[in-house]
């Protein structure tokens, strides 16, 4: 049997081009080359598969030129006719993880080629893509390569050979996709067993865990709001007119940080919404309808609040917890904290 063909995707760092300063390296195809982490995969493949090409792309380049980069890479992958496509592993590198997920998803959906990637469980890419593609958990640093490579390689072979894929527990990827199998007992009997366990107060495992409602305990109330610095944030996509940072209208892959020192209200000649999910007419007509700067300024003047923070943060997204939005909020929350903000008003559409 001939060897399975594998195309491997890595970022500029693992290609040895450079770190953050080289993150804008455009995508390139290197036919016949096995680079960096590819060596470890190659070792695990043995005679069963070979990496026929490696695609290298800078993380910033990918993030900023996502559509173009995806299209280009898809084209290359198609030419190489691989049996399986591997990206990363990305360990704890956030943008790299997101890129691995995005490119894998595109390859899978556009080319119908099986894909696998790997990353640290807390990498934002994991949450974003584990229900769409196979993502293997890795350590949080490249030191985890030697553990990750054999697992990913073995699984890639399985995918390439079109073998039946088992559950996340059996295969080792992160849970995210529902996989059918035949149980030993019929459903009604399993229900009775579960009921007996539940009645007896014994442990039981639900077969379908309801979506998680991860809760964070509320912080204490503001004791004196008239002394508090309050920041405005929104997921309603309010941006300066012209959307200078090109906040995407359909997916929240960026957040905007805008200075409103001296801005007394948000007027239609200076601000607008980048949100694509609802009729923008009302928000564009008077952006205060989404981000109430006018009212906050009045309250500030009247001494009803201490101060309106001089920056606001904006994302687009319909309020549902998009993993990327989560990551950006976590990022700007740290900035707010560092700037001494006492409380936040978050508005959503």
């Amino acid at each position, binding site marked *: 049997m001939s060897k399975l063909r594998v195309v491997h995707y890595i970022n500029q760092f693992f290609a040895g081009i450079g770190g953050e300063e080289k993150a804008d390296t455009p995508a390139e195809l290197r036919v016949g080359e096995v680079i960096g982490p590819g060596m470890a995969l190659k070792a695990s493949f043995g005679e069963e598969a070979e990496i026929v090409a490696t695609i290298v792309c800078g993380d910033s380049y990918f993030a900023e030129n996502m559509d173009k980069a995806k299209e280009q890479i898809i084209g290359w992958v198609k030419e190489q006719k691989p049996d399986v496509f591997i990206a990363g592993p990305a360990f704890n590198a956030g943008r790299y993880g997101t890129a691995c997920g995005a490119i894998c998803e595109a390859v899978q959906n556009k080319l119908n080629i099986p894909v696998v990637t790997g990353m640290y469980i807390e990498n934002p890419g994991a949450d974003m893509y584990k229900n769409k593609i196979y993502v293997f958990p890795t350590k949080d640093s490249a030191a985890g390569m030697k553990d990750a490579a054999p697992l990913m390689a073995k699984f890639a072979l399985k995918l390439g050979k079109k073998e039946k894929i088992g559950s996340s527990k059996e295969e080792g990827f992160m849970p995210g996709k529902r996989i059918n199998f035949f149980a030993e007992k019929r459903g009604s009997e399993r229900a009775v067993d579960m009921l007996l366990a539940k009645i007896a107060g014994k442990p039981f495992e639900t077969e379908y865990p309801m979506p998680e409602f*991860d809760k964070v*305990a*509320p912080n204490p109330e503001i004791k004196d709001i008239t002394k508090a610095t309050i920041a405005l944030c929104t997921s309603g996509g309010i941006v300066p007119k012209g959307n200078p940072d090109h906040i995407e209208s359909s997916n929240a892959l960026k957040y905007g940080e805008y200075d409103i020192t001296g801005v007394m209200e948000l007027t239609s000649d200076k601000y607008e919404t980048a949100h694509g999910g*609802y009729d923008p007419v009302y928000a564009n007509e*008077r952006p205060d309808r989404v981000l109430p700067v006018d009212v906050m300024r009045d309250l500030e003047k009247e001494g009803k609040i201490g101060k309106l923070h001089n920056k606001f943060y904006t994302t687009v997204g319909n309020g549902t*917890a998009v993993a990327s939005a989560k990551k950006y*909020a976590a990022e700007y*929350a740290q900035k707010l904290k560092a700037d001494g903000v006492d409380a936040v008003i978050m508005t959503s*559409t």
Partner: protein
Amino acid sequence: MVKEIERAGIPVVHMCTITPISLTVGANRIVPTIAIPHPLGNPALDKAEEKKLRRHLVEKALKALETHVDGQVVFDK
């Protein structure tokens, strides 16, 4: 997103139209707003009236920030 801000240790009030979503995304202090395309406004009102409405909502939000809560609370009164 509100959860991440809360996690960072900053009290946050979520002003949104679809409070059930707000509840599922884990906001603790929630103030319901007017409508999806104009959460803090109502184009049917004249400018002054509309601002009054907005102020009313923002004051509700401030009130929520001043209120001790143990879990998720929708401030819809």
